[in-house]
C-alpha cells in the first residue's frame, strides 16, 4: 500500500517557513536570534555611549536614567557594552559554527557515500578526536596558537567538527541507499556531482538543525573561553569577558553581570528554540542528533 503523499504541497522551503511560522516557540527563537543580529549590526546607532570609554567619575553606578544598565568599575556604560557585546560573540561563533558544520557535513557525506577504507579512516580519526577530552584539546590548541579569533574558530572547528561528521554521516547513510542515488551512480555521475545534487540537499535539514544547535553550544563555549581568559582583549565589549570581569561583583554590583548574562542567555535560548522549531518543521529527529 502506498503512503499517502499529500503533505508538503507548496515547495519545501515555503513549507518549512510555514511550519516554522506555525510553531510559536520556533518563531520566538527565530525572532530572538534575528533581534540579536540586528542589535549587533546596529549597535553604533543604538548604544547611548561609547562601549570602551572609561569614566573615573562614574564608576560602579547602579542603573539610572543616565546609565540605564549602570556602569562598571571603569565607569563604562553597561548598556552600550552589552549592545556591542554580541558582535564578537556572534561573528566568532557563527563563523566557527559555519566552518565546523560545513566541513563536518562535507566529510560526513563523503564518508557515507564512498564507504570503504575512506569511511573507516575518517571514522577512526573522528573517534580519536572525540575521545580526547575537549578541554585538553582546546587548551593545547590555544596554547600552541594563541587566542586570536581565528585560532578560536579553528579550535572550535576541531572540537565540534567531528561530532558533525558523525551526525551528518549517519543521516547521509540513510540517503545513500536511496534509489535516486543509485540511479545517479548507474548514470556514472562523479562523486562530487552526487554529493552536491543528490546527497547534500537531502541531509540539509539535518545540517541546518546541527547548525542551530551547535551554534548555541559554540556561543556558550566561546563565553567560557572568554571567562577563562582566552577570548576577547579588554576593553573590547564582549559578553563573556564582561561576565568574567564582573562576576566577582555579583553580590555587590549585580547589574554589571546581569545585562550580559541576559543577552547571552537569550541568544542561546533563541538558537535552541530555533533549532527545535527547525527540527520539527523539517522532520528531523533531534533525538538522534548526538551530543559530542
Amino acid at each position, binding site marked *: 500500500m502506498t503512503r499517502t503523499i499529500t503533505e508538503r504541497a507548496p515547495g519545501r522551503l515555503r513549507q518549512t517557513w510555514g511550519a516554522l511560522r506555525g510553531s510559536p516557540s520556533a518563531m520566538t527563537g527565530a525572532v530572538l536570534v534575528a533581534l540579536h543580529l540586528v542589535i549587533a549590526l546596529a549597535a553604533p546607532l543604538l548604544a547611548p555611549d561609547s562601549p570602551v570609554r572609561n569614566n573615573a567619575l562614574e564608576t560602579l553606578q547602579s542603573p539610572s536614567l543616565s546609565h540605564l544598565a549602570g556602569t562598571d568599575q571603569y565607569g563604562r556604560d553597561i548598556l552600550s557594552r552589552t549592545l556591542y557585546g554580541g558582535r564578537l560573540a556572534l561573528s566568532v561563533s557563527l563563523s566557527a559554527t559555519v566552518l565546523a558544520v560545513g566541513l563536518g557535513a562535507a566529510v560526513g557525506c563523503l564518508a557515507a557515500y564512498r564507504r570503504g577504507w575512506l*569511511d573507516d579512516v575518517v*571514522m*577512526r*580519526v573522528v*573517534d*580519536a*578526536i*572525540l*575521545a*580526547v*577530552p*575537549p*578541554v*585538553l*584539546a582546546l*587548551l*593545547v*590548541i590555544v*596554547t*600552541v596558537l594563541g587566542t586570536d579569533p581565528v585560532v578560536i574558530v579553528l579550535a572550535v572547528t576541531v572540537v565540534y567538527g567531528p561530532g558533525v561528521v558523525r551526525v551528518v*554521516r*549517519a543521516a547521509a*547513510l540513510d540517503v545513500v541507499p536511496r534509489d535516486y542515488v543509485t540511479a545517479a551512480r548507474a548514470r556514472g555521475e562523479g562523486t562530487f556531482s552526487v554529493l552536491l545534487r543528490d546527497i547534500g540537499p537531502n541531509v540539509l535539514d539535518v545540517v541546518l538543525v546541527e547548525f542551530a544547535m551547535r551554534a*548555541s553550544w559554540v556561543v*556558550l563555549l566561546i*563565553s*567560557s573561553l572568554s*571567562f*577563562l581568559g582566552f577570548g576577547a582583549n579588554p576593553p573590547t565589549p564582549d559578553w*563573556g569577558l564582561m*561576565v*568574567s570581569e564582573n*562576576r566577582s561583583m*555579583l*553580590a555587590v554590583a549585580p547589574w554589571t*553581570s546581569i545585562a550580559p*548574562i541576559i543577552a*547571552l*542567555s*537569550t541568544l*542561546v*535560548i533563541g538558537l*535552541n*528554540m530555533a533549532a*527545535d522549531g527547525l527540527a520539527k518543521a523539517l522532520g528531523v*529527529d*533531534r*533525538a*538522534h542528533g*548526538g*551530543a*559530542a
Partner: protein
Amino acid sequence: MSRYIARRLLLALVTIWLASLGVFLAVQALPGDVTTQILGQNATRANVAALRAELGLDESPWRRYLDWMSGMLHGDFGSSLVNHASVGAEVGLRLRNTMLLAGVTVVLGVSLALVLGVVAGLYRDRWPDLAISSLSLVGMSMPEFVIATVLVLLFSINIPLFPAVVTAGPDARLGDLLPAIWLPSIALTVVMAAYIIRMLRTSVIDVMASEFVTTARLKGISPARVVLRHALPSALLPTLNVIAMNIAWLVGGVVVVESVFNYPGVGLLTIDAVHNRDLPVIQTIAVLGAATYVLCNLAADLAAMALNPRLRTNRRTA
C-alpha cells in the same frame, strides 16, 4: 556477543592510540618546553641543556613516544617532568576525585532527567511539559560559571549550607570531599540534565506515537503499563548515548566548575599540565580520557543491547 565486545575493545584500543598520538604531536608543537617553564628566568642555555638531558628530552620525539607507549603498556605512565612524581598515582588520585563528582552528578542528573523527560514527553504541550521544557532551556542557556557563581552566592555565602570551595588536596579522603561535592554537582546537574531531558522528551513523544504503543493500548492494558513496559525501553535508547557522552565529558574534566569550586579533579590538573608542558601527564590524561570515552560509548551500546534485543543478534555497527 563476546566476539562483538572483543572487536569493539580492539577498535577502542585503536582509537585510544590514535588519540594519544594526536595529542603527542600537538604537544610537540607547544611553544617552549618544560625546561623553560621550570627554569623561567634562569633558563640559560647550559641550564636548559642540562635539564633536558636530565629529563630525557634530548631523545628524539619518536623515541620518547615509543618509550612512553611501552611504559604505559606495562602500566607505568612515567613520572611528571615537573615534580618527578609518578604520573599514574597523581592522575589516578585526581581521576578518583573526578569520578566521585561525576558519580554523584550522574546519579542526581540522570534520575532527575529521566523523571522530568518522561513527564514532559507524556504531557506534551501541556503545562508540566511547558514548565519542564522552559526550565531545561534556561539550564542549557546559562554558562556554567554563572550557574556555579550564583549557587555559591546563594548557598554558601548568603545561606551558609555548603562549603564554597574544596580546601582539601587531591589526596583527601573521600569522606572529606563529600560535603563539598554538592554545589559543583548541582551546577553540573543543571547543565547535564537539561540536555537529557530534552532528548528524552523528544524520544518519548516519538515512541508514544509508534505503532507498537498504539497496539499495546488497543490490547486494553493499563496506561502505566503501556508507558513503563512498552514505551520506556525504546524511548531510553537514543538517550543512552547522550548519557554516555555526558559521563565521558564529566570524567574528562569539567574545568570551569572544578576551577570555581577548587575541586581537585582532572580538569585542574589538565590546565596545570598544559601550562607546564608536562607531557607525560598530558598524555596520561589524554589516554585515560579517551579510554573513558570509548568505554562510556561501549557501555552505552551494551546498555542499548540490554534494552533492545534486536541489537543483540542483529547488529550493524559502523
